[in-house]
């Protein structure tokens, strides 16, 4: 059976060139980069090189990159590390209601430690009101945390404009850019962020490696204390192979950025057109202001999980909500925040393409989907025929 993987926002296949790049660091170059002998030296250079590759993709300097274990760890350190550092100045944090759980749950945790958090709402297309954001700032505000690209809908927030507001009020600005990396042009020097979080497995590197950008001069508490790795900002033996892989994936992304984005956008639009041509299907999220690879739609009268499972039976991998929250029963907090009607709140499916997605893949979905939708609608008590 054909397998079509359209769940790249959950995780991506590791690129073949990335596998080639990391393999030597398992059996041959296995040293600890903190060691001074040959085994340490031969990997240290590779880590330095990877740090440069990650920095280059976002226009940072290598010293501003802290390698860590995943995107969630980065979000946690950005939020908790900033709160602990700045809580003597104030306890107010501004974020949005549609952040990833790595931000939302960490904010809720900080509330138990005395933080006061404003969760900004979004409109029906998933967009923020920047005047509302600016009005939420008080003299207690120490941190603004806004994601670049939403993992469920792909909606993009205007990070540059938010950066300008943060700068104007001299408030630290953290951006979760896990879904943006490789799909949106990122220039940290230009967009006014102080902290930014990335995760390797969303751009063709393996799971288990992430990076936190910390603008030069920004002080941040450690989340993981111990050895002096990463300028004392993250203890633990460096995941050399993972770091090399992440660097390589960034280098590939930089080289192929325009091509990949253009190709994904064409295919996503083809998929979107075909899916929206089915009756009673609605697009979730802003029509244009969206990641080039993401399509989130609601199929009225159908529950998302059933649709996913039927698609899975013909080899199509997609998702309802984020992988983290599927398995729990609640409806998507992102769609709920957008005010998606109760009737289709549970009917959403996310298709997320990758650079490896082909037109064949898309056409296969467009061929398989209609009978599945029909079958489920025939079963549905919501639809009186």
């Amino acid at each position, binding site marked *: 059976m054909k397998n079509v993987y359209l769940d790249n926002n959950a995780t991506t296949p590791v690129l073949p060139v990335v596998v080639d790049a990391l393999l030597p660091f398992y059996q041959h170059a296995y040293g600890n980069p903190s060691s001074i002998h040959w085994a340490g030296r031969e990997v240290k250079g590779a880590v330095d090189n990877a740090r440069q590759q990650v920095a280059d993709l976002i226009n940072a300097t290598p010293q501003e990159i802290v390698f860590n274990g995943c995107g969630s760890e980065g979000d946690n350190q950005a939020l908790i590390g900033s709160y602990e550092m700045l809580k003597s100045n104030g306890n107010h944090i501004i974020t949005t209601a549609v952040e990833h759980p790595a931000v939302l749950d960490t904010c809720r945790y900080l509330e138990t430690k005395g933080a006061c958090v404003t969760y900004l709402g979004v409109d029906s297309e998933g967009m923020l009101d920047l005047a509302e954001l600016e009005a939420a700032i008080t003299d207690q505000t120490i941190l603004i945390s806004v994601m670049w690209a939403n993992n469920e809908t792909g909606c993009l927030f205007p990070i540059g404009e938010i950066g300008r507001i943060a700068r104007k009020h001299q408030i630290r600005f953290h951006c979760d850019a896990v879904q943006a990396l490789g799909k949106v042009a990122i220039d940290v020097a230009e967009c006014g962020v102080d902290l930014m979080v990335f995760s390797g497995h969303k751009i063709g590197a393996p799971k288990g490696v992430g990076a936190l950008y910390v603008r030069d001069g920004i002080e941040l508490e450690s989340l993981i204390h111990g050895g002096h790795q990463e300028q004392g900002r993250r203890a633990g033996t460096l995941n050399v192979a993972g770091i090399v892989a992440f660097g390589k994936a960034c280098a590939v992304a930089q080289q192929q950025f325009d091509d990949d984005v253009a190709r994904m956008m064409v295919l996503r639009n083809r998929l979107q057109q075909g899916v929206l041509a089915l009756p009673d299907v609605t697009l979730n999220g802003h029509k244009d202001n969206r990641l080039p690879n993401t399509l989130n739609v609601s199929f009225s009268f159908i*529950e998302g*999980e*059933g649709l996913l*499972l039927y698609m899975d039976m013909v080899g199509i991998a997609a998702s309802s909500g984020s992988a983290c929250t599927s398995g729990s*029963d609640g*409806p998507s907090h992102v769609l709920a925040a957008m005010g998606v009607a109760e009737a289709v709140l549970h009917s959403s499916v996310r298709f997320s393409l990758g650079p490896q997605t082909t037109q064949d893949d898309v056409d296969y979905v467009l061929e398989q989907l209609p009978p599945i939708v029909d079958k489920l609608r025939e*079963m*549905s*008590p919501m639809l009186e025929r």
Partner: protein
Amino acid sequence: MYTDKVMDHFSNPRNVGQIENPNVVVKVGDPGCGDAVLIFLKIDDNVITDVKYKVYGCGAAIATTSMASTMVEGKTLEEALEVTDEKVAEALGGLPDSKMHCSNLAATAIRAAVTRYLTPPEEGAAS
């Protein structure tokens, strides 16, 4: 995450559809997850001679409704009232913990339908 039995009932749900002149029809839903079952029973001399349903829900909701329908087909009303969510889940070879509540949807629908049938219409509660 689902057993083969669950996937079998999910992919080939038994008894889906509706009955033209049912003796009773009831709709129940899980307000928490938005899932819903509309169940139709044909009852003859205290025996369920036909059962059909429509279901909106997750894989577990569909599979449990299908399984529950087979468990009451041809049974007496008393036997049907003994179909519990645990028994439905068990018949499917088990459900993931987070999906145990889904089996309740099917069992509740059947009990509600039988109860409605046995209760004079003006006192019927479930709808």
